């Protein structure tokens, strides 16, 4: 521990240099802007910035990338809350309650809560990263396919809680997401599935492309259908003291969501989207008023944003400790280290402690700096949102097109996006929730690959093999408890499958 403190002090001294601090601030601003723009996200931002960081020293370079990671994770929440289009997949869960708050004239509260939750979640994630990286690394080394499979299953049980209306439709949407995720190369054998010889499908369907279609293009269709022009989406968005006071009373919920975010973030392959939905499900299940979730409950915003921001610290844990990226964004961060000839993993602690502690401090200071930057820059970041709905429709359309093209450089993926735009719109109109589909899409490849690996490893003694994995058994027990809880809640609220009630409200996804 004293060594960690020494290297932290050294890293803090390094951060006192204007260059490193400026790099972090620039990364944060770019990250928030990229997060706000639908179609781009922290992954694209980090990937684009890596060549520029090559010319900086490793700590300053990582400060830029971590700034983009923090900012991008947060920025998507602003558009999710204020215009109902998550700037990044990470923010999709935040939209469930954030956007209804805006529609109810509480946009400032939603933006403030998402900012505070992001900052506090990221700080808690950073503190935990610094404090428990080595002990958790030893635990993470024991995690294999069985445990990841069980954790993915736990994430899928969140479908019951993120579904508004008919649970049956929610499960259908979730299974549809799992099925869409099977398109492309088989994760174990490389065998092509459901691609029909179409090159655009052979590598699988890009999640961002689907998201832009289902949320972006479907939103454009909805805007045109409503036919409202010359109106602003939000009248005035600024930091809300009422929201600050409300947030201060939610320390327990914040700690709980942070814990979920950190643990899920530390599990390779699960990621921020899952942590946000899981935190949302837990917040809803533990609420005295679960029916208000999805209708603008601020606790939903707090839970999702805290969890997905805390995931940043958690996700960097396995990268630093064992050299395994927990998610694609962290893989990009790893690339940012490797261009400097540094190999993330246990040896890095011994060979380059200054870099490790520099990363720690970048995560922590970046989280702290996000608060003034987000609040001071809120008008700038939201300037694009104070436009007529007609212009916003055209903007979302163009940003989706350009964003998808920038990400995949493929016209074929634009067709895929349009297709999913139509699918998303039809789902809204027939009141199928969209979030379970996204959850299925994200978890599908992880779940399938690890399920099949488990089957291969278990062989003829599969049950005995799983029974010999205590961590997996605990997680599977949690799955069973979650499913039971969902069934009980559904039966109590009268929204079980037979004769399920569906709210006759707006057509928001969720």
């Amino acid at each position: 521990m004293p060594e960690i403190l020494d290297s932290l002090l050294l890293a803090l001294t390094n951060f006192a240099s204007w260059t490193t601090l400026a790099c972090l601030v620039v990364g944060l601003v770019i990250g928030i802007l990229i997060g706000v723009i639908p179609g781009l996200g922290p992954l694209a931002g980090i990937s684009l910035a890596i060549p520029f960081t090559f010319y900086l020293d490793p700590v300053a370079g990582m400060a830029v990338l971590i700034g983009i990671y923090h900012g991008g994770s947060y920025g998507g929440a602003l558009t999710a809350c204020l215009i109902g289009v998550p700037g990044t997949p990470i923010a999709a869960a935040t939209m469930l309650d954030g956007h209804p708050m805006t529609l109810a004239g509480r946009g400032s509260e939603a933006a403030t809560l998402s900012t505070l939750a992001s900052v506090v979640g990221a700080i808690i994630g950073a503190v935990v990263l610094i404090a428990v990286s080595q002990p958790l690394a030893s635990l993470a080394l024991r995690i294999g396919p069985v445990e990841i499979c069980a954790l993915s299953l736990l994430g899928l049980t969140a479908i019951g809680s993120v579904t508004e209306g008919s649970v049956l439709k929610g499960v259908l949407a979730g299974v549809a997401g799992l099925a869409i995720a099977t398109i492309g190369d088989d994760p174990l054998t490389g065998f092509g599935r459901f691609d029909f010889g179409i090159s655009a499908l052979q590598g699988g369907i890009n999640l961002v492309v689907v998201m832009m279609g289902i949320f972006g293009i479907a939103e454009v269709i909805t805007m045109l259908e409503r036919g409202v022009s010359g109106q602003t989406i939000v009248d005035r968005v600024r930091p809300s003291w009422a929201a600050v006071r409300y947030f201060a009373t939610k320390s327990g919920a914040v700690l709980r969501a942070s814990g979920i975010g950190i643990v899920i973030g530390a599990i390779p392959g699960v990621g921020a989207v899952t942590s946000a939905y899981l935190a949302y499900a837990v917040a809803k299940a533990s609420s005295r008023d679960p029916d208000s979730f999805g209708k603008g409950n601020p606790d939903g915003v707090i839970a999702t944003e805290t969890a997905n921001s805390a995931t940043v610290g958690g996700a960097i844990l396995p990268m630093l400790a064992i050299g395994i990226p927990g998610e694609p964004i962290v893989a990009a961060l790893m690339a940012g280290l490797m261009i400097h000839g540094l190999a993330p993993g246990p040896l890095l602690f011994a060979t380059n402690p200054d870099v490790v502690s520099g990363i720690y401090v970048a995560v922590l200071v970046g989280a702290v700096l996000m608060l003034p930057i987000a609040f001071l820059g809120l008008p700038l970041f939201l300037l694009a949102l104070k436009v007529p709905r007609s212009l916003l429709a055209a903007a979302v359309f163009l940003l989706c097109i350009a964003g998808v093209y920038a990400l995949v450089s493929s016209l074929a993926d634009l067709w895929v996006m349009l297709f999913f735009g139509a699918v998303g719109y039809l789902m809204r109109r027939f009141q199928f929730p969209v979030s379970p589909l996204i959850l299925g899409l994200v978890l599908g490849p992880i779940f399938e690959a690890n399920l099949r690996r488990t089957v291969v490893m278990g062989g003829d003694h599969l049950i005995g093999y799983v029974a010999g994995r205590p961590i997996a058994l605990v997680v599977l027990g949690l799955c069973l408890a979650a499913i039971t809880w969902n069934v009980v809640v559904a039966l109590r609220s009268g929204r079980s499958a037979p004769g399920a009630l569906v709210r006759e409200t707006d057509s928001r996804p969720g």
Partner: protein
Amino acid sequence: MQSDRVAGIVCFMLGAGYLAFGLQLTGSVAGLASGMAGPSAYPRALAVLFMLMSLGLIVWPSRYVSALTSWFATIIVLTIGASYVVLLPLFGFLVTSIVAAPLLMAFAGERRPSWLIGGSLSLVFLVYFLFRHVLVVLLPPGSLLG
């Protein structure tokens, strides 16, 4: 309730199609992944689950479902989108967007010429500048325009 049953039937057919294609998947790597661990078992299981859920929706439709009111906006957006994707490689991002943006705005109900022309032009150039010069992303220049 009627539209829920229609949705259930459509989902069932989609599930059946997915199952049919899943049954055709026979690829496996000897000794590595076959049978339950092969590439087709998982999609088949998903297909069966999807079809069962669809049947559930047909048998137990939701009580209140808002029916599809108009296809107009969907057709307009998808037509503009499809035309955009077809024309993009020919005319490039700038020209295609300069045509598409005011069209979308007009269909969204915008009638003010200043917004239709000035707003859409500003928007297109702002997006172009952001991607081309800030993010340094190459957007299609258009083969007909060189």
